[in-house]
């Protein structure tokens, strides 16, 4: 305690006591304490309040002593004590007998004002196509599954079909050996047996460095697939930037009116031709860039401004890297794109698609065992592969991805289960976890 003191410092002392922070206590100008809330106080608060008031009275008494009044005698006689209690002897951690009831509150995000564009894939006979049903993605007003705003559409899975036999991880291949030479049967199988929402036909044999299948011939495969299944489809080229525009033009032509997704327009090929094919024959465009948000903006802008593709016909693929092989970039790239869109960047407000199948490129997904002998045993690969694809997709679903291109039936089943659980459409028996510690496993 300061030895010399002026009355004008009184206010400072009281301030140091943090009196304002106590609810129900106000300090008036003429040093009157006004205490409200008496009987309704819970014991802990009452204790804390008592502590503060006692401290204040001690300081007051000290001031009194400085002014020459024997305050200690007053205390002693008032409480029947031999000597004055010291502040340091007051218990600092009171034994609390009752819970300090408290209400949890949290605000919704206030700057997610821009909805993501809705895009419909596939067209029924009423709309000039022949699909039995359509798929609509996008339309979000918040990050996926967040309580801030209801998510209008669930996630969808389109399963890969190739126009020729390709190298696949053993765990994947086992599911397709019977259909590997017949894209139409392959497409039927993924819809009928593996619950695919859509089918992607990849025309990889058109690559001049593979089979150089003519665009016209490849288009026949598209027709076959459209005949074989009645779900919406995605048409992929071979990834060859010289050949793809021609291949996708022919494919778009034979699929006229079906509102397929043409995969893909990118900055390293003649995207104008892809966009024009989509416009001429009534399709959507997949806008594909490589893990670079500014490139994604640039391509979307070019598709809209230069090629006049309407907003409701653009889906983005910002690139999927596998778990352990750059998923951190892919995840954050998507999350940034989605947040930017929600906060008003109109060049990024499009639904997203992920080439989740890329997960199978990770050695952990397909190798029999670790190539490094210091590693612990990797266990059976038939279980490792599908979960690699699931976790890759799941991470991106939380970053805002809408549609998944996938390969393994178990991966598809589990990814649908978890994303639809998060979406809120999976009912299940309630489980009581209050005593989970004692659970037998």
């Amino acid at each position, binding site marked *: 305690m300061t030895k010399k003191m002026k009355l004008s410092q009184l206010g400072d002392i009281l301030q140091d006591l943090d009196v304002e922070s106590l609810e129900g206590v106000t300090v008036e100008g003429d040093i009157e304490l006004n205490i409200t809330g008496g009987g309704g106080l819970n014991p802990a608060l009452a204790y804390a309040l008592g502590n503060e008031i006692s401290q204040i009275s001690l300081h007051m008494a000290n001031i009194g002593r400085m002014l020459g009044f024997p305050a200690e005698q007053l205390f002693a006689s008032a409480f029947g004590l031999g000597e004055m209690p010291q502040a340091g002897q007051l218990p600092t951690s009171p034994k609390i007998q009752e819970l300090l009831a408290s209400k*949890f509150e*949290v605000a919704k995000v206030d700057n997610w004002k821009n909805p993501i564009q809705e895009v419909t894939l596939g067209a029924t006979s009423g709309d000039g196509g022949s699909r039995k049903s359509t798929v609509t993605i996008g339309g979000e007003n918040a990050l996926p599954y967040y*309580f801030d705003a209801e998510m209008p559409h669930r996630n969808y899975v389109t399963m890969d079909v190739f126009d020729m036999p390709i190298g696949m991880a053993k765990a994947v291949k086992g599911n397709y050996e019977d259909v590997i030479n017949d894209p139409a049967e392959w497409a039927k199988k993924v819809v009928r047996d593996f619950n695919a929402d859509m089918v992607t036909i990849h025309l990889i044999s058109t690559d001049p460095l593979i089979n150089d299948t003519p665009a016209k011939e490849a288009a026949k495969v598209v027709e076959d697939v459209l005949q074989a299944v009645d779900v919406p489809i995605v048409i992929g080229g071979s*990834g060859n930037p010289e050949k793809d525009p021609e291949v996708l033009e022919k494919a778009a032509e034979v699929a006229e009116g079906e509102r397929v997704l043409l995969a893909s327009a990118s900055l390293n090929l003649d995207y104008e031709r892809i966009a024009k094919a989509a416009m001429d024959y009534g399709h959507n465009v997949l806008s594909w860039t490589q893990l670079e948000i500014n490139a994604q903006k640039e391509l979307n802008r070019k598709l809209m401004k230069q090629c006049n593709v309407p907003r409701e016909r653009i889906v983005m693929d910002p690139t999927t890297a596998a778990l352990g092989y750059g998923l951190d970039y892919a995840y954050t790239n998507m999350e940034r794109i989605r947040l930017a869109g929600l906060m008003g960047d109109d060049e990024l407000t499009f639904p997203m698609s992920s080439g989740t199948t890329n997960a199978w490129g990770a050695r952990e997904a397909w*190798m029999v065992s*670790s190539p*490094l002998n*210091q590693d*612990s045993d990797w266990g059976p690969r038939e279980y490792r592969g599908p979960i690699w694809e699931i976790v890759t997709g799941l991470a991106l679903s939380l970053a805002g991805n809408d549609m998944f291109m996938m390969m393994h039936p178990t991966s598809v089943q589990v990814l649908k289960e978890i994303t639809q659980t998060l979406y809120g459409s999976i009912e299940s028996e309630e489980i009581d976890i209050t005593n989970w510690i004692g659970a037998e496993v």
Partner: protein
Amino acid sequence: MKINSPLEAYKFLPATNCGECGEATCMAFAAHLIDRSKKLTDCTPILEDKFRKKYEELDGLLAPEIREVEIGVGDKIAKIGGDDVLYRHKLTFFNQTQFAYDVSDTMDEKDLVERVNYIQDFKKFYVGNFLTVDMIAVRCTSGDPAKFAAAVKKVMETTDLPLILCSFDPAVLKAGLEVSKDRNPLLYAANKDNWKEVGELALEYDVAVTLFAPNDLDMLKTLAKTFAEMGTEKLVLDPGTFPTGKQFKQTFTNFVKVRRAGIDGDRDIAYPIMAVPFTAWMAHDDPVSASYWETVVASVFTIKYGDIMILHSTEPYAMLPELHIRDTIYTDPRKPVTVDPGMYKVGEPTADSPVLVTTNFALTYYTVESDIASNKIDCYLWAIDTDGIGVEAAVAGGQLTAEKIKKGIEESGFDLKKDTSHNTVVIPGLAARLQGDVEDATGANVLVGPADSGRIPGWMEKNWPPQNK
């Protein structure tokens, strides 16, 4: 953190530019404080008595929004919490999610020791380091304090890993604490019924304690406030992990809400969060389904704000993806994506050693490098400048071309004809389509390597040295 510009931190620093912290100026040091790459205690002058007030004030302003809690002792000490942001790109997430695997006190002793050893020995090499798991959670399934204490003791004899003591019975927890008090374990858990007794144990033994209020955020906050008032902020919050259906969705919502409130400045709830993917085993009987679902639940809450979790499955197909998704989320996004393009010598290459080509994407480069080095293959390895894009994507996107490879090799001052005896380049299997072009561009023989660098040793046996054409 309550401030976000270096200038705001600078105001509190001595402003002498003394250089003690390793930075040239106090302003540069202030920038490191804001991005959390340096600690305030790195500034030795500010620790002097005359700056005490400024130190304390700045220390308070720099404190992370989510409190940091320590579990364990020594070099196995684990920190959880300490985050300042909701999205990793805004800064980075700190203190990666700690994975605790359960044992129970009714397990056969031999099984228990074997399981603990498996857990503490589990490792997976990745980009220069081993990924490992972190803790043992001892569950009391016997209901017997003595049995529980014995199990805790056995675990401690087997491992230095930090412990979580799991029971709702204060007598059991006390018995466990008596044997493990020197290890700074985490208590699990106080709930609305036992909070008084468990709270006193936490205070008496000065250990962190988990507060468990399944799907009741008001109760969770009530417990947290009460414990803070009782005198401890070494708290971990468990809002309950319900494994399936609508309950799971609610669990997700609870995690997002608690973390958002904490980051937004509600100090009463700004503590690390615990997830218990273990509950997946209460929903699935079949062990493969349970392991799969547990992995999925663990992944969701590794991404969304779980700071510590209790798991059951030790199957590699569960642990490997869990370790990798954690690394994915907690890797600092500010670290460079690329390595410097150019030639790297692996081992001690000679003129007879192979010349391998890959990209300058850091992950690709380090994977290839570790596969080669760990198999003791001497070689020249080129990181070609692909703007940090991996092989397959760079071939598709035109960032990895024959010209780029030619330029990359030439710019290193390396002459394939003079500096090697074989005039041969090995390109990645995923870049096979470039073979002809690279031959034309470099005039060298071009061999196509395996699609995965893990197969380089086997490939070398068959293909190296190259047959003279």
